[in-house]
């Protein structure tokens, strides 16, 4: 029974699970075909194909294509394989073999996905079935090129909670104690006139006037001026984010920018230096002068110390991830696993990002110095650094909702170019703008959660579902490059938020070991000795590599929890039955009702 080698090997795909879940919320199913459909999802076509499974060989199946997904069910009795792939993950569709191709299954389609896998289908040469499938897939996987809407705009799913309500910038700043007498909230960017890639609402020094801000904007790449991301609740030091100054080859200076940074420094009385972290390697920062950019020089910014964090650019990261895919898909490089892994440099990049974030966090928390973080444009490496540092410093962001707010704030509202980096609905798979920057951030979060198994409210599934829907285009959350574009497209009105799906079923994403600890700063050890490849994400398609699911340690904990509850119930029944005979139970030191309540409430 258990031996069917091709049984749902992708059953650990969260996509499947999420569909099962939503089916309870009224997802339609084509009776008889058992094709799961979301409200608003329509079936386009189906074809008989041979799925060339890299792990179990060719499997005959029927593929259904809707405007949201590609769904394959095997037609063979001994294998229950199901593939369920949102079209959003498709990066590239290629035709394999030509009219003259010989050999079985040599004629078909090869689909490259954004989530570390490839799908191959062999089709019959007769009847143009390949052409049909190619055209339909191209059309619906890359709707932008065909003037079609992205599926998120067609999705009619309804959830009990509205994920768009999760992040309210005013509330989030208020949680941080802002505004205060040093910092004010400005609406200068209400219509995105100051900076079209920044959110409408910004926190700036109280002493900087709106005119000052405009003058500073002229000296910062894409007008991304230094604004507050986070303030330390006790020592009141801040993390500021911005883009590079427009120094250029001639070494231009701007008095307003210099004064502005000085004003920031002066909000903190404890130390008379401001720390600037330039995320780039030193040479890159210098090279940027040629295109008008640069960094803050000692001469111009007397009261600031500048450090480079040596994090490479989006192109390096893209190539690195490509190498990771090469060694894990479809086959895992076995003979020299560790050196192969090393040669991808992926973990090295993770290490540099984490190291940078640790430095930022440490500077703010222990060094008691305010910090300005930037890279070139301040929407990739900067977002990684500020959000990771905030995750280390502020335990609130380690809760499920807190993390959603962190992503919503530091990534989505501050203009990480999701559309360009992911290429939602776009057919140009080789676009140099694409890069796994957000994935890298989530990987860093995962590394932290490995080192601190009790510090995060969410589990690995939570991180994976976020990544799955980073590509799926089912939700509006990660669409578009910036807030102004989202506003123009009325994303919050016309699409569903990913947080709606997650927050209406939070239990599934909770880490049972979570121990809420307020004010605890987490310093992960950013050492190759501890960093690991995230096997459950990068190698999840390989049935041979999969680690035990559910995690046995977690499972044991859940069993013990159930056992405890059962015992408490029984004890209460016993006590009830014996209550006339028993003295006041609170005199008994081992009385569970006295020992447990504080723990019970956690779960």
């Amino acid at each position, binding site marked *: 029974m258990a031996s069917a080698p091709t049984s749902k090997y992708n059953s650990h795909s969260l996509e499947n699970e999420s569909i099962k879940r939503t089916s309870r919320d009224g997802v339609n199913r084509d009776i008889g075909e058992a094709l799961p459909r979301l409200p608003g999802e329509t079936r386009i076509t189906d074809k008989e194909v041979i799925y*060339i499974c890299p792990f179990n060989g060719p499997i005959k199946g029927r593929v259904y294509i809707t405007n949201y997904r590609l769904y394959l069910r095997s037609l063979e009795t001994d294998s229950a394989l199901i593939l369920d792939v949102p079209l959003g993950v498709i990066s590239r569709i290629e035709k*394999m073999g030509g009219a003259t191709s010989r050999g079985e299954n040599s004629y078909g389609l090869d689909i490259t996905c954004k989530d570390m896998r490839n799908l191959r289908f062999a089709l019959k040469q007769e009847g143009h079935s390949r052409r049909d499938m190619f055209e339909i897939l191209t059309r619906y996987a890359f709707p932008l090129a065909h003037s079609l809407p992205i599926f998120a705009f067609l999705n009619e799913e309804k959830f009990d909670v509205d994920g768009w309500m999760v992040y309210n910038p005013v509330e989030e700043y208020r949680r941080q104690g802002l505004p205060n007498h040093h910092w004010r909230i400005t609406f200068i960017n209400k219509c995105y006139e100051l900076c079209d890639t920044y959110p409408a609402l910004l926190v700036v020094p109280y002493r900087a006037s709106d005119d000052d801000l405009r003058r500073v904007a002229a000296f910062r790449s894409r007008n991304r001026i230094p604004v507050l991301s986070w303030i330390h609740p006790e020592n009141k030091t801040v993390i500021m984010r911005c883009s590079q100054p427009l120094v250029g080859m001639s070494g231009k200076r701007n008095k307003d920018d210099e004064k502005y940074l000085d004003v920031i420094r002066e909000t903190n009385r404890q130390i008379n230096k401001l720390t600037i972290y330039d995320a780039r390697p030193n040479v890159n920062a210098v090279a940027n002068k040629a295109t008008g950019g640069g960094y803050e020089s000692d001469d111009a910014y007397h009261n600031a110390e500048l450090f480079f964090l040596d994090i490479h650019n989006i192109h390096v990261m893209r190539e690195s991830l490509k190498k990771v895919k090469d060694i894990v898909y479809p086959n895992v490089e076995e003979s020299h696993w560790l050196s192969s892994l090393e040669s991808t440099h992926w973990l090295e990049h993770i290490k540099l990002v984490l190291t940078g974030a640790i430095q930022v966090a440490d500077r703010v928390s222990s060094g008691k110095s305010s910090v300005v973080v930037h890279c070139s444009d301040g929407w990739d490496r900067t977002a990684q650094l500020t959000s990771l540092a905030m995750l280390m410093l502020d335990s609130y962001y380690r809760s499920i909702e807190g993390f959603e707010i962190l992503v919503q704030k530091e990534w989505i509202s501050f203009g990480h170019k999701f559309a360009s980096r992911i290429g939602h609905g776009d057919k140009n798979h080789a676009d140099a703008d694409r890069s796994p920057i957000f994935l890298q951030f989530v990987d860093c979060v995962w590394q932290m959660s490995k080192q601190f198994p009790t510090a995060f409210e969410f589990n690995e599934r939570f991180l994976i579902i976020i990544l799955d829907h980073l590509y799926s285009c089912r939700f509006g959350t990660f669409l578009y490059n910036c807030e102004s574009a989202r506003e123009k497209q009325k994303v919050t009105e016309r699409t569903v938020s990913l947080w709606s799906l997650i927050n209406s079923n939070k239990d599934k994403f909770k880490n049972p070991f979570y121990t809420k600890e307020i004010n605890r700063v987490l310093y992960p*050890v950013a050492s190759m000795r501890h960093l690991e490849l995230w096997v459950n994400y990068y190698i999840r398609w390989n049935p041979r590599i999969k680690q035990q699911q559910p995690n046995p340690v977690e499972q044991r904990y859940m069993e013990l929890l159930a056992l405890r509850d059962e015992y408490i119930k029984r004890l209460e029944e016993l006590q009830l039955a014996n209550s006339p005979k028993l003295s006041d139970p609170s005199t008994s030191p081992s009385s569970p009702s006295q020992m447990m309540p504080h723990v019970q409430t956690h779960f």
Partner: protein
Amino acid sequence: MFSLKPPRPTFRSYLLPPPQTDDNINSEPKIKKLEPVLLPGEIVVNEVNFVRKCIASDTSQYDLWGKLICSNFKISFITDNPMPLQKFHYRNLLLGEHDVPLTCIEQIVTVNDHKRKQKVLGPNQKLKFNPTELIIYCKDFRIVRFRFDESGPESAKKVCLAIAHYSQPTDLQLLFAFEYVGKKYHNSASKANGIPSGGGGGGGIGVGGGSSQKTPLFETYSDWDREVKRTGASGWRVCSINEGYMISTCLPEYFVVPSSLADQDLKIFSHSFVGRRMPFWCWSHSNGSALVRTALIKDMLQQRKIDQRICNAITKSHPQRSDVYKSDLDKTLPNIQEIQAAFVKLKQLCVNEPFEETEEKWLSSLENTRWLEYVRAFLKHSAELVYMLESKRLSVVLQEEEGRDLSCIVASLVQVMLDPYFRTITGFQSLIQKEWVMAGYPFLDRCNHLKRSEKEAPVFLLFLDATWQLQEQCPAAFEFSETYLAVLHDSTRVALFGTFLFNSPHQRVQQSSEFAISKNIQLGDEKGLKFPSVWDWSLQFTAKDRTLFHNPFYIGKSMPCVQNGSVKSFKRTKKSYSSTLRGMPSSLKNGIISDQELLPRRNSLILKVKPDPPEQSDSQDRGAEQYFREWFSKPADLHGVILPLLSGMHIKLWKLCYFRWVPEAQIQRGGFITAFHKVSLLADEVDVLSRALRQPQGSPPEAPCPELVQSRVYFHAGGPHDAPGTPDFLSSSFPFSPVGNLCRRSISGTPLGKFLSGAKIWLSTETLANED
């Protein structure tokens, strides 16, 4: 709070004494009587006052002042100063916080930085300079450093020479254990004719843990007989021909052989085997197949004949008369020299300086040590033998030249995988007695207690490491924790326990009889002295500390579990298996689809042969591949067979064991221990509740008997006022603390790697020439 890239001291800065910051160090060290704590039979050989123990490398502000003594058992640093920066100390009752047993010393380096000289001290060597500094490299990866700036130069020199002398004894009987036991005998003789406790110790750990039964030592006929009965082996008998070690000096006095072989035949056969180590039984599967280990037949003429006779006998002992599967370990597994070489490289890598320098190439360097590769090779081979025994129902014979090294690992791993008893604490200890101590694993040579053999090899550690891999993958299947494994490893470096002192049981008897005669100890009926057993854990750890040996994730047989909301006694039925694939060890190739074939080349759609439907799953011909695949397709039966995942990413470095002394690698208030802590609290609560439930109904709560209330777990669910957070003292090194055990940075200017392995080469070209 911490700097990410510490400034790298230069070689020069190492040789010159670090600048003194007088505000932090009391320039007039306190003069106070500092007395060492000594064990029976332990004597102070030499001592020196006003010694500074270096704690941090980049500053001397944390350094401790005290007295350094060398006894015949340990080096001890005695101080009044509290240990700085340390939040927790796991106390060994035999050793002080700053002590190092002499048998744990790997290398002794003396330095005089005014004369710019250094020397690695061997035994009976002269030292022509007065050392200003002493660096002790320990076998457990610690590095301890003392400075003698304020001490009397002559006494400092004497202590260094004493340490060198006493840590490199010329004779086994000079190891401290003999003094200790001798003293115990004398003491007890003067009181009554009692014999000091030794023997099996308890299950040792379990107060209230249900494992208070004694560990069988397999020194007696009855222990073997019980083991035969426990496994349900039929066709096997305990034989006594080696009583008094008449046949072989490296076999136990009693061992188990096929019933069909008569004592007379065995005696004749024995001559043909290396070390007269004829085949002896380890274990039997419930299906009747047996695990047997043997040395090679050296007599080429007799080889075929004897081999045939033995195989026939083993076949006869099998209820199905199945064939015998022979596994030649020498041909399939790394040898002890390779294992030792890998370990030396691993050690270099783990303690290498500076930390940051090894970071960039960490993964490939780790791979190049080949340690993980070897761990994996042993696990893989053992798993394949599990398949032979369990699925093919064949008896397995492990063949090895002498049969005293690789066989120990493989025999043990096979049994750990197959028999849940060996995953309990008592069971695991009995396994070590059976397959290591009694089977003649040469602990003395491999641990190199006498510091003079080229036979040193961490074979036992490799077994513990492989066990850790299994534990890491199946945490609920083991009663013991990784702390237990690490502490067990450490115990091999404390030359007090008879368990790890000898090359064979015969050596113990022989050496200790000699010693007894020379010391006028009446042995009576005893065969040799009774040394303390390592299994008597109360010698080393308090009851509370021993609870850390327990794995809170363990699901014992008697533990109830919850299914569908109702509490059931734990019994997993075959029916509860689901059909989800759990992956399989992809390293096991030659299967239906080999890994290489799987890789579709770009622009080609190669058709792969589909795997045969597993219809003939009961057929004996299915491969190991399929056996593993099927096993991994089911949830692990924690009371059945467990198998390891074996691909590169599944075999991991045992960080607790190898990184615990490295401050830079320590995750403060993090690491797996924080989840362990959380589960412990819950397990403790559940225990308290179940005790409350078991209390006779209606009776008022009794004053709890302390022994019953003693928790199985280290961490307790506190009262409602306890903060539920992660305790401050937890770290990824817990319960060990790297503070003070390694003064890293200040020696980072020296090429430490050279110090550790190629010290001789280095010194001969640079400094040694200055010295002698």
